[in-house]
């Protein structure tokens, strides 16, 4: 006996798969944008001179990062059930807070990688602290961390599959639904693997197109 691969049942359910893919994209895009915002704020706090800010940022990062994402999902959906948040927003919140911690660490490292002299020089020209950060430090730091951020983005897209356990009808959820009706386990998971692969590859390549993302030599001046 041989197992005969048959993708016809998958094709018959293409509407579900497409819906799932769109939900995965929406969830990932939203999670990515919000995680970037959280990460920039927390990461900047983590690189601040104020000890209190640094401790607060480190606490956030350790707490969020050291709890499994699956538990984050359940915490919002089951633990905070009385809030009656729709599953999609529970998943968005979980992804944002969890991935935000990783983004924060990356941003903090990026800020640390910009030579100190850059900040001092910017302040010497009469820029305020905030202006120096925004106009001089961030552009250099973001360039340094773009490859790491691209890798976090790909991680986040794959992590979004965990939203399936709290009934968000994304790609993995729909795969499981189709599997149950057709028993075509191999075919359905091969299909969604290919879709994840395509999506993650496109996003990672897209992020690397950001001007200067591939140029790693920015710290080659200033600090001796």
């Amino acid at each position: 006996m041989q197992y005969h691969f048959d993708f016809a049942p998958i094709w018959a359910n293409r509407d579900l798969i497409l819906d799932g893919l769109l939900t995965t994209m929406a969830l990932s895009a939203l999670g990515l944008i919000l995680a970037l915002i959280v990460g920039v704020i927390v990461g900047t706090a983590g690189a601040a001179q104020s000890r209190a800010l640094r401790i607060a940022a480190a606490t956030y990062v350790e707490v969020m990062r050291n709890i499994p994402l699956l538990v984050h999902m359940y915490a919002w959906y089951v633990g905070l059930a009385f809030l009656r948040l729709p599953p999609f927003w529970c998943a968005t919140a979980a992804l944002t807070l969890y991935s935000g911690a990783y983004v924060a660490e990356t941003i903090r490292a990026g800020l640390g990688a910009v030579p100190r002299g850059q900040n001092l020089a910017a302040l010497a020209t009469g820029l305020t602290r905030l202006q120096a950060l925004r106009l001089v430090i961030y552009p250099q730091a973001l360039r340094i961390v773009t490859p790491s951020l691209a890798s976090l983005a790909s991680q986040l897209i794959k992590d979004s599959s965990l939203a399936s356990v709290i009934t968000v009808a994304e790609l993995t959820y729909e795969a499981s639904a189709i599997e149950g009706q057709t028993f075509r386990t191999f075919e359905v998971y091969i299909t969604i693997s290919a879709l994840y692969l395509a999506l993650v590859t496109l996003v990672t390549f897209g992020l690397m197109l950001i001007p200067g993302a591939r140029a790693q030599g920015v710290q080659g001046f200033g600090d001796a």
Partner: protein
Amino acid sequence: MAALLRTLATLIALALAIGPAAAQAPQGTIAKIKERGKLLAGVKLDTPPFGFLDEKNEPTGFDIDIVRKIAAHIGVPVELVKVTSATRIPLLVSGNVDLVAASMTHTRERDRTIDFSITYYTGGQSLMVPKASTIASFKDLDGKQVAVQQGTTLEKTIAAVAPNAKIIAFRDYNAAWLALAQGRADAFTGSLNVLQGFLKDNPNFKIVGELFSVEPFGIGVRQGDSDLRDEINFALQDLWTSGEYAALYRKYFHVEPTTPIEVWP
């Protein structure tokens, strides 16, 4: 791009690798079981009363006792292998288990992928709601949230009989039950016997309305494995004739069997 192509090639190679593993001859599954000295049975352990862990953490349940009897019929001990929805077919097809007895409803669509034994249990779908709920049957579900286990015939049936209900599907019965208990869902649908299991410990809920589906459960074997399927069918029929089936049924469902197992002369 080269990296992408390499990854794709790996994926395809992986997919093809399943082929040879799956290519074990069905002829002589019984011979293979006897040579190995045990029957490998895929069972679920999260679906009382069909398959669950008892107080001593031992696997027990209707499905599990049935496979024990089938193994005895073949003349070997049984080794239980825990399966989930995502693993049962790959484990069966790759030969890691000989059969799957996991409260599976036999459908024509599923039958295209694997083969099933004769019906060894007939279930019906019902509805569970909070005691104070005004929902009296599936006809009252318009606009209501109904929790169900994902990928099941139950999910398909409820969508068909209550097209205006909002169906939220969960990985397993426990999660769907939790949604009802937490008030995230207005109703919880499932096999009557399973709902009764949940009702036992939760008096603030009730089961309402008539049964609205017929769920014939079958034991799954590899497509074309008529050798083992025959043996399972004969074992089930012998269990019915000897009265052992009725005893098991009473043990787990506390009533007499409602639907007899067909017996071939």
